[in-house]
């Protein structure tokens, strides 16, 4: 029993340890960057430094003289760790920055225009990259960065391509430094006090200073010059004034407040002569050899989503290097696409739920309304009867019998009908017309010769008029036609009724 208890405790501890490791790893992933083991190749003047990092700590540093053009020793170090990604950091390489605005350009025209701008700004041998550098006034503004590679750099890249190590990217120290400084300010929550125009002034070397001019935290240009120890304060203030004067050609307006961030100087710099300057002094010394490889962190991804700020740090992408870089950027894209899609789906679900709720209410209301209709059980039969009754009403017909009976009274005793014909013709489109043919045999004794005992003297014409009057009495449109007869004692009459709809009746 005792043994079992001990075993249980140790197995639980193992599980807990694993869980702890997982949580710790996640936590570190949220805050820190990955990978932790890599090479950093720093090209500075005539020297190439190869620094190996393990767990984000530099453990090995080797210097090479680039004048020898021999990569044998470099390759030897790299081949020991073929899966370590390489980061190449250029210090003092000839680089250029341009801001291109595509304001009021339709987005589908942006790509060819940017390509054209790149071809105009940089030579064929330059390596260049584009980065969106939008601001509130101009969302379609891009930063073009061009790098004129030295012969040695070209050879070095060619050599690195033949190695197994994935190349993460090619970065400029000035860009990396600006990014680190802004990141530091962000951590100290000082980034809100930054003006639109920011100047980063730092000591590049023992004898050189560098000025990085940024607009909305995107680099516009860099300048550097020798550091004169005796006149440092005065000369640097002069340099800033000259730079501001130059910036007047860009979007900068004279007298606009500017933030100056100084770093790396032994003595703090004071610029009392220029009132528009807001000076932030950073004590921290940024060393290119000890910085960690800034790969990607989820926190920064989220930050750039919500603040719409573009990261200042981006590597130069050459087509040959891109494939390796994809290995690191694919998970980045995956996570960055996953976050908004999850947000979209969850928000969409809530919205749909709300909509469904309102529809549900409407549905319940309609059901109630439906239940409110109380129709008799034999509704179907009644409706059928109703429809049949309607059809019965619309079905009408001629009823000539009553009129014929009256006609007999009018005709006798002067004539007797020998043949009566009634024809109804359909004319199409629901129209019918009809005519009545009557053949009469006359009793000639009554006309002109004899006077009827009760009716007096009547001529044949009067008799015809009497019959005509009988037919036209009810129907004014009726036309009568006396057709010529073979003998004197017969009369043929045709009564034509006008065209009518079959739904209407002549007699009903």
């Amino acid at each position: 029993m005792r043994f079992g208890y001990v075993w249980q405790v140790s197995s639980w501890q193992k599980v807990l340890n694993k869980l702890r490791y997982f949580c710790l790893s996640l936590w570190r992933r949220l805050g820190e960057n990955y990978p932790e083991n890599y090479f950093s190749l720093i090209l500075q003047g005539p020297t190439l430094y190869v620094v190996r990092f393990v767990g984000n700590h530099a453990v090995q540093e080797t210097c090479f003289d680039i004048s020898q053009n021999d990569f044998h020793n470099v390759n030897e170090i790299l081949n020991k760790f073929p899966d370590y990604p390489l980061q190449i950091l250029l210090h003092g390489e000839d680089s250029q920055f341009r801001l291109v605005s595509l304001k009021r350009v339709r987005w589908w025209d942006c790509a060819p225009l940017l390509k054209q701008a790149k071809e105009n700004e940089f030579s064929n041998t330059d390596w260049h990259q584009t980065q969106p550098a939008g601001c509130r006034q101009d969302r379609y503004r891009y930063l073009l960065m061009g790098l004129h590679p030295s012969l040695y750099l070209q050879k070095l890249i060619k050599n690195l391509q033949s190695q197994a190590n994935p190349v993460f990217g090619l970065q400029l120290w000035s860009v990396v430094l600006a990014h680190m400084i802004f990141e530091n300010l962000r951590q100290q929550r000082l980034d809100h006090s930054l003006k639109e125009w920011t100047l980063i002034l730092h000591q590049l070397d023992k004898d050189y200073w560098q000025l990085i001019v940024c607009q909305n935290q995107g680099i516009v240009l860099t300048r550097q010059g020798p550091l004169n120890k005796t006149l440092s304060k005065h000369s640097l203030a002069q340099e800033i004034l000259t730079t501001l004067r130059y910036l007047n050609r860009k979007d900068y307006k004279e007298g606009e407040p500017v933030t100056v961030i100084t770093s790396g100087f032994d003595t703090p710099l004071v610029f009392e002569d220029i009132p528009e300057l807001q000076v932030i002094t950073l004590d921290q010394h940024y060393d290119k050899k000890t910085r960690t490889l800034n790969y990607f962190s989820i926190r920064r991804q989220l930050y750039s989503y919500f603040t719409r700020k573009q990261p200042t740090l981006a590597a130069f992408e050459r087509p040959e290097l891109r494939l390796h870089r994809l290995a690191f950027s694919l998970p980045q894209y995956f996570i960055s696409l996953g976050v908004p899609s999850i947000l979209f789906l969850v928000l969409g679900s809530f919205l749909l739920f709300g909509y469904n709720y309102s529809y549900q209410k409407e549905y319940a209301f309609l059901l109630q309304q439906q239940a409110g209709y109380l129709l008799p059980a034999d509704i179907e039969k009644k409706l059928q009867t109703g429809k049949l009754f309607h059809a019965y009403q619309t079905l009408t017909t001629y009823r000539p019998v009553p009129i014929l009976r009256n006609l007999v009274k009018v005709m006798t005793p002067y004539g007797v009908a020998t043949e009566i014909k009634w024809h109804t013709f359909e004319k199409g489109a629901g129209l019918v017309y009809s005519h009545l043919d009557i053949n009469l045999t006359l009793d000639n004794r009554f006309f002109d010769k004899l006077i009827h005992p009760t009716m007096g003297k009547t001529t044949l014409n009067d008799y015809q008029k009497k019959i005509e009057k009988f037919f036209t009495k009810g129907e004014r449109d009726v036309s009568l036609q006396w057709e010529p007869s073979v003998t004197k004692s017969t009369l043929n009459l045709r009564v034509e009724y006008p065209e009518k709809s079959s739904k209407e009746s002549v007699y009903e």
Partner: protein
Amino acid sequence: MNNLSLASLRVYLSPWLHISTGGISLIMIGSIILAGTLFQINWDQGNQIKANITQVSAQIRSLQYQQQQLVNFELSQKKHIKTFSEFQKRRFEDSLMPEHIHLQFQRWQKAYKIESLSLKFGSQNVYQKDLKLWTVPVTVNLKLLQDHQFYQLLERVQQELPGKVVLKNFSLKRNTPLTPHMLHQISQGKKDVNMFEGKIEFDWVHYQAEKTPANNGKSCP
């Protein structure tokens, strides 16, 4: 170009093998599946409710229509009392067959002492398909001794025959020509005895629940 080597494949896999990238990716996939399922459920439910609402509103419209029809029928029934009683008398809502009118004509032949009567039915046509109303052309050939027999029969046919009669043609002809003696007799109001030949053609409209094509073109003596 050494990008697609086995070593570089390991590089491509390595970020995913890392517990944080892999873990976060798995969590993200799980969350996407969950959120997607939630979205799908809500979407389907919404569609279902919309379909239900459409169905119920159609039913309500139909109920309203039926109620309106019923009210209209009742109003029309009250307004045309005479026509409605005639409609009932003529058994217009009952399913009728040609045999019904055949029997009726036989009865009339006996009652009015008609010399000879023959019935001929034409082919049956549809009048209103939804109401199952059919129309049959009927021809009646008659031989009679007195003309008023014909008029009486014609009126009976139009007023009493079950179903509805739409009169098309009719004719009445004396077989023997009138002599002055006969004319004199008729004008004096004496009996007009002659051999008459009559013909009545009409469309017989009736309700028939099931069509029986056997009756088409049937002729009865």
